[in-house]
């Protein structure tokens, strides 16, 4: 038999971006809420107030993002990877999770972290370079950011196997980018997940870029179609539609909880900012592309919808802004107050059990530092 990738299902709305054609979409860019035969039921409970909460989340994480970017520009952080434009993908998916689910992410998922209960003050220390880790993964159900592209897809799969062995109905979720799909680890994760029917959700944010490389360099066909080839059911969703993302993630989680195994979600979104604060996207991308995506802004459409419904009044809008400002200011204050780490902490947490060689190096370095004290 000959195989070809299944054709995308008939498009609901005409859309300039081919990647979005046929993607699950519930809230249109104009703010119109539509039903979706397959996934609509997953978010039937999301009323105006609930949607407003999602709006609040998105505004807050964008504000965190802006503040952190400023902190970097001001020299308070060494680096920051902005999520600008990806708020719906992150909030919609992370708000679908249960407390006992577990997220393994890359560096860009500060919105996910926020939803998991990582405090804004915990988000910045790593990027300031004062510590290896901002939070305890077990407290929030989220691993610390992974820098090695795609490595966490396997960690999530293994964690899911552990959940399966434990007889838990919790689920592991892996977050990664479009670029990450090229790494062997991402494919091996699909193999392992399919083979063991592991309760894991692969959540790919196709933000169209891997630093300067467009997604077309990573794949000639749809990323969701790739997962299907591994026997992992997949879906493409409008990643800038927080309701649709919530819906498809809930569906994937439900399948995993019921023993149905892994799923793959391709959230089609756009990295509106630079790769990191060290990057200059004007070197490689067309400003027109950015403009086109601005019209699909994930926050604007929720605002439009809620405003049209009379829910998002000026007063409530101001309250959301105030909340965001408050979070951002707290983060800034916490950040600038962070002390430099103790030099001798270099030697901590390398091993769990005694290690004479490292102890020797530590003792020597202590003597070395002391010699400067003595010299004073």
């Amino acid at each position, binding site marked *: 038999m000959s195989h070809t990738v299944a054709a995308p299902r008939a498009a609901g709305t005409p859309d300039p971006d081919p990647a979005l054609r046929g993607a699950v979409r519930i809230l249109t860019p104009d703010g119109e809420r539509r039903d979706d035969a397959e996934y609509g039921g997953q978010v039937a409970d999301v009323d105006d107030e609930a949607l407003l909460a999602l709006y609040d989340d998105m505004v807050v994480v964008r504000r965190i993002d802006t503040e952190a970017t400023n902190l970097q520009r001001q020299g308070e952080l060494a680096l920051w990877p902005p999520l600008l434009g990806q708020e719906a993908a992150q909030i919609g998916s992370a708000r679908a999770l249960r407390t006992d689910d*577990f997220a*393994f992410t890359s560096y860009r998922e500060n919105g996910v972290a926020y939803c998991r209960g990582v405090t804004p003050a915990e988000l910045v220390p790593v990027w300031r370079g004062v*510590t*290896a*880790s901002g939070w*305890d*993964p*077990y407290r929030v159900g989220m*691993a*610390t950011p992974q820098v*090695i592209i795609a*490595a966490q*897809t*396997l*960690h*999530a*799969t*293994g*964690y*899911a*196997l*552990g*959940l399966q*062995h*434990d007889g838990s109905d919790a689920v*592991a979720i892996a977050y990664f980018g479009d670029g990450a799909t090229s790494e*062997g*680890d991402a494919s*091996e*994760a699909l*193999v*392992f997940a399919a*083979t063991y029917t592991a309760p894991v959700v692969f959540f790919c944010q196709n933000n169209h870029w891997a630093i300067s490389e467009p997604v077309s360099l990573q794949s000639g066909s749809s990323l969701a179609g790739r997962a299907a080839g591994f026997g992992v059911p997949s879906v493409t969703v409008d990643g800038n539609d927080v309701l649709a993302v919530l819906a498809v993630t809930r569906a994937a989680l439900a399948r995993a909880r019921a023993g149905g195994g892994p799923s793959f979600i391709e959230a089609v979104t756009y990295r509106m900012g630079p790769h990191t604060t060290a990057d200059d996207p004007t070197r490689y991308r067309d400003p027109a592309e950015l403009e086109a995506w601005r019209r699909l802004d994930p926050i604007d459409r929720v605002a439009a919808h809620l405003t049209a419904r009379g829910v998002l009044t000026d007063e409530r809008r101001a309250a959301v802004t105030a909340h965001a400002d408050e979070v951002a200011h707290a983060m800034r204050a916490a950040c600038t107050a962070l002390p430099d780490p103790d030099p001798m902490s270099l030697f*901590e*947490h*390398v*091993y*769990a*059990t*005694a*290690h*004479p*060689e*490292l102890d020797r190096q530590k003792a020597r370095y202590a003597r070395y530092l002391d010699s400067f004290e003595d010299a004073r």
Partner: protein
Amino acid sequence: MSTMTMGGALNAGLRAALTADPKVVLMGEDIGRLGGVYRITDGLQREFGPRRVMDTPLAESGILGTAVGLAYRGYRPVCEIQFDGFVYPAFDQIVSQVARMRARTNGAVSLPITIRIPVGGGIGSAEHHSDSPEAYFAHTPGLRVVSVADPQDAYDLLQDAIACDDPVLFFEPKRRYHLKGEVDTGRSRPAALGTARVLRQGTDATVVTFGGLVQVALAAADAAADEGVSLEVIDLRSLSPIDWVTVAASVRRTGRVVVTHEAPESVGLGAELAAGITERCFSYLEHAPVRVTGFDIPYPPSKLEKHHLPDLDRLLDGVDAALGRPSSFEDES
């Protein structure tokens, strides 16, 4: 107390670990029904079921990467890499994930993963089946590296490795899988992890080695004794960290040392031993530490391996060098 091969002792050790701790899971290629290509996991899947003794897809990075996730969830994965030469696809997960997770999480996450690897040559095998990759891992902070040499140690150190909260690379010299010895599986004993042992006492020179060459060193010591040379033989057991106390004490007594391993010489474990011994014993040394190792070549075709691997004669040639006698070690620069 019973007589076992080293392979048998490892099998017994895995069984004991699976029995003692429900969090222990075994992962690897062909370790289930087949019991592993060396039968080290023989019968364990039947006994403990496919969830605890998991045949994995053919992907080493996948094995280690999922082991990280399992350990994150509180399990103690014991991964088998089928042969030394197949560990490299997992190198990234080992050096960037397994080794660093504790440091990365400020101690919140332990990864008590044991990575068992049949290593080394001497079995007439094909390419990629005879590597000695210990130096790569001994250079990597966050890992412990162990190499066993006989049945009792194999049994004991495997228990220690699995119980250890740090990740451990556990090297099994495949040419000694059939080596027999008495094994006491019941004894209570101090943990041996991290310690070397003096296998034979001597006064003229110290031979430091590990794994498959321990038997060679003992035989060389016998041969040397016949010629009136008294060799002390140290089995390092722990390649990271090195038990410098035991090694330095011996070299200070003998004043001469030969280190030997199968891996290529340059930047091998022998370099660390020679450097570390010199640092610790400089004023006691009568001669520079001598290295007798595999050459700086890819592992050769099997009909040539006897030339590549240090054997009794090459070891004694090195001892001659250390004793200042005529040898193939001339003043080279």
